[in-house]
């Protein structure tokens, strides 16, 4: 096991970075999309149950099924993996962003308006910072969830550590099969752990001081 890792250290580290990279990029895009949709939902209240239903239904659809639905459109490779991960990453963030915006005290928005802030100013300087702790919690959930989804997306040659798991599967019976599968699985758990710590740190840095717990 140890020999297996030390012989391939560089490439394993590269794949671990690729895995983290795929997830973080997808979650980044997902956050922007989800917050954008949540702003719309906040403006048009009737969309609220629709957004929640869509996100609940979306989370029910297995990721392997989404891979199958995407393949005819985006073909085998990293793009399919990216869209798949980003789709699932959006849903928990959307759910939390809708709740987060709804929780913002209406009187604060009134006072911001009274001070002469524009709609955009109110959004960027009042609503978003106040809703951010809840949105950030959604982003954290999303990162963890996406780690496993990226592993499945490796079946269609998405980047990252998931490929090792499938190599282990195809080499079943071979000397290194278990090593491959272990490196893939444990590697993803470790990447997820590090990513979660980074997300905690991001929370410390980005959550506005006045409302920090």
């Amino acid at each position: 096991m140890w020999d297996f890792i030390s012989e391939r250290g560089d490439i394993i580290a590269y794949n671990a970075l690729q895995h983290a990279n795929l997830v973080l990029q997808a979650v980044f895009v997902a956050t922007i999309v989800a917050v954008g949709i949540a702003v719309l939902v906040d403006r048009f209240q009737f969309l609220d149950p629709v957004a929640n239903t869509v996100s609940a239904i979306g989370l029910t659809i297995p990721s392997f099924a989404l891979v199958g639905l995407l393949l005819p459109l985006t073909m085998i490779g990293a793009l399919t993996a990216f869209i798949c991960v980003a789709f699932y990453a959006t849903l928990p963030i959307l759910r939390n962003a809708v709740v987060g915006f709804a929780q913002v005290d209406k009187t604060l928005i009134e006072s911001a308006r009274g001070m002469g802030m524009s709609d955009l100013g109110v959004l960027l300087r009042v609503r978003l910072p106040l809703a951010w702790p809840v949105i950030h919690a959604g982003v954290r959930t999303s990162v963890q969830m996406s780690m496993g989804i990226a592993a499945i997306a490796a079946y269609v040659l998405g980047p990252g550590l998931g490929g090792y798991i499938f190599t282990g599967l195809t080499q079943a019976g071979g000397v290194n099969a278990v090593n491959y599968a272990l490196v893939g699985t444990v590697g993803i758990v470790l990447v997820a752990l590090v990513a979660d710590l980074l997300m905690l740190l991001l929370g410390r840095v980005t959550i506005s001081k006045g409302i920090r717990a």
Partner: protein
Amino acid sequence: MADTSTTAPAQPAEDELAPKGSGRVITREMTLMLVVPPALVAAVFGAFVWWRQTADLDSVEAQQLRWSELRRLGVEHVQLTVVAALIVVAVAVPLGVLLTRGRFRAAAPVVIGIANAGQAAPSVGLIVLLFLWLDGGFWTAIWALSLYGILPVLRNTIVGIQGVDPTLLEAGRGLGMTNLATLGKVELPLAVPVIMSGVRTALVLIAGTASLACFIDAGGLGEVLQTGITLFRFSLMVTGAVLIALIALLIEWLGRVLELATRPKGI
């Protein structure tokens, strides 16, 4: 997929809200989730049947998409999900109850911590490792699926029982109930809504992960999709994907119905 740790890990926000939201009120979202998925499933399945009957398929596709074959795989898929879910409930609920009793209480955070860490492991990884260890087949898949589905039920059982108002326990004891009686007549009934919400989460996780059982020769509808990807036939891919998604939606819906049906009167 609600995979997802992930996945699962999929619906943490909802889980956490469940204890508070277990009132009699049925929210608009609950109504929508009871009505929309079955309608969606019926519409998409209808469209699929129409396409299957009219589409021009070559011999490979026709062979793979025989109705008898699809039915066999669908039944396998449901069997995998149901057997794993039953095992999960049979193991996780008693274990959760035990972890709220007397001296085992101290172990609860440890067990939850281990289960949480396990949940971070990707479902494919778990399935493949168990395959390499135990060899393929139905029961290996059941092992993987049950392991993967245990956390939400275990966590919700513990949270649900701990969430029971201690004054109600006092009242039960005051009426002369034994420990077993307070557990059976007070704690468990009050915890049922929370436990059932965990069961639904577990069902979604298991149904999604069952689509990966095809990798280890345990069948299920993932086989159609896998064959489709291997032979690169869009018709097979889309059929597999759509059927997997429909079954997952149906099972989630069933979980919601169960949740409503098992909710004790008066809560």
